[in-house]
C-alpha cells in the first residue's frame, strides 16, 4: 500500500469520529417520549396508528389542498369533517406544542420546518415581538 503511514492512522481517526455517537451514548438509557394527550377530545382526525406513522404526510397533503386547490374541508375515514389547518384544528385539541409535538420531535432530533411560519396559538407570548417605542409609533 502506498503512503501506509498516512492512510492507516487516517482511517483510524475517521472511524473514531464516525462512531463517536455510538460509544459516547453506550449504556445510557433515555426514556421514551411522553407527549401529553388532549383531555377534552378522544378521537383524532384519523386512527392513532395512522397518525403516528403518517401525520407528516397528512399535513403535507392538507397544505397542498388548502393552498393550491382551495379545499379546506377534510372528510376523514371516520366520517367526520375537519377544517384542514395545523394552527386552528390540530392545535385546537393538542393545546401545547411544547408538551405534545416537541416531546417526540426533540427525542428523535427532528426539526420540522413547519414551525418556521406556523406557531402554537396558545403560546403567542413565547414568540418574538416588536416593542413599539414612542419613536417607532
Amino acid at each position, binding site marked *: 500500500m502506498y503512503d501506509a503511514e498516512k492512510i492507516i492512522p487516517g482511517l483510524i481517526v475517521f472511524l473514531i469520529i464516525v462512531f463517536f455517537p455510538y460509544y459516547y451514548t453506550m449504556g445510557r438509557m433515555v426514556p421514551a417520549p411522553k407527549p401529553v394527550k388532549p383531555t377534552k377530545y378522544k378521537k383524532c382526525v*384519523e386512527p392513532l396508528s395512522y397518525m403516528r406513522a403518517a401525520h407528516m404526510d397528512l399535513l403535507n397533503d392538507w397544505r397542498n389542498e388548502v393552498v393550491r386547490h382551495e*379545499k379546506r374541508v*377534510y372528510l*376523514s375515514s371516520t366520517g367526520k369533517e375537519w377544517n384542514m389547518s395545523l394552527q386552528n384544528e390540530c392545535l385546537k385539541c393538542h393545546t401545547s406544542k411544547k408538551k405534545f409535538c416537541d416531546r417526540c420531535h426533540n427525542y428523535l432530533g427532528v426539526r420540522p420546518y413547519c414551525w418556521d411560519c406556523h406557531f402554537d396559538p396558545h403560546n403567542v407570548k413565547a*414568540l*418574538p415581538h416588536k416593542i413599539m417605542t414612542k419613536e417607532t409609533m
Partner: protein
Amino acid sequence: MGVSRREFLKLAGLTAALGLGTGTAFELLAPGQVEAGEYLRSENALKAKQWALVFDVKKCLEHGEDCRICIDACINEHNIPQFDNPLHEIKWIWKDLYRHAFTDMDNEYVNDFYKDKPFVLLCNHCGEPPCVRVCPTQATFKRPDGIVMQDLHRCIGCRFCMAACPYGSRNFNWLDPRPHIVHYNPKYPTRRRGVVEKCIFCNEKIDLGLRPVCVDACPVGAIIFGDLYDPNSPVRQVLRKRFSIRRKLELGTKPSMFYLI
C-alpha cells in the same frame, strides 16, 4: 490486478449518480398521496371567475386622508411585520400619493381634489399577471377564481416575481419577520425569511364564505367587492355608473383593482 484510479473514480461517480437519481426518480414519477380521506371545498365558499375590488376614492378621501383602518386590519389579520428600515419594508396594502400610484397619468395639471392625495394600493390580482409567468416553481399562481395566490411553502425566494411586477406589490422577507411583528393573530401563520409575500386577497376568508378584511374594515364602505366577470355583481354595477381608472393599463396585465374618480 486492481482497478486504475480513473476507472475507480468513474465507478464511484456513476454509483453516486445512480443512487441519487433513483431516489429522485421515485419522487418525481410516483410522489404518492396519502389516501385516507377526501378533500372538499367548504359549502360556504364564495365563488367567482375573477375577484376584483373597486375603491371609491372620493368616499375614502372625504372620510379622512390619514385613515389607515383597512391597512391596519390587514396588518393585524396577517401578522405583517413592521420593519423600521425602509429597505426591508413589507406592505400588502398601503397608501401612496396619486403621482406615485399612477406614474403614467398626468399629475401636474390634475384637479386639486386628487393632486398629491393618497390612494390605497395593493396587489392588483391581474387578469394576465407577469409574476405568474416568470415564477420557476409555480409558487405564485392564478387560482380559478382569479386570485393570484402565493404558495409560501414552495417559494425558493428567487425574487423573479418582484422584478416582473409592474406595480411594486411584492415583498421579500430579507430578515426573520417575527421580531418585527407587533401583534400576533393566533389564527394565521407568519412567514419566514427568504420567501416572497404579498396580498393574497384573504383567500382564507373567501374559501370559508367571508369577505376580505379590508373590505369589511372600511367604516364608509369605500371598498366594493365582487366578481368582475359577473355582470350583476356590485363591482360591475358601480363600474357601469362611474368612471374608473386602473394602474399601468398599457402593459397588458389587466389589473383587477379599480379606482373611481
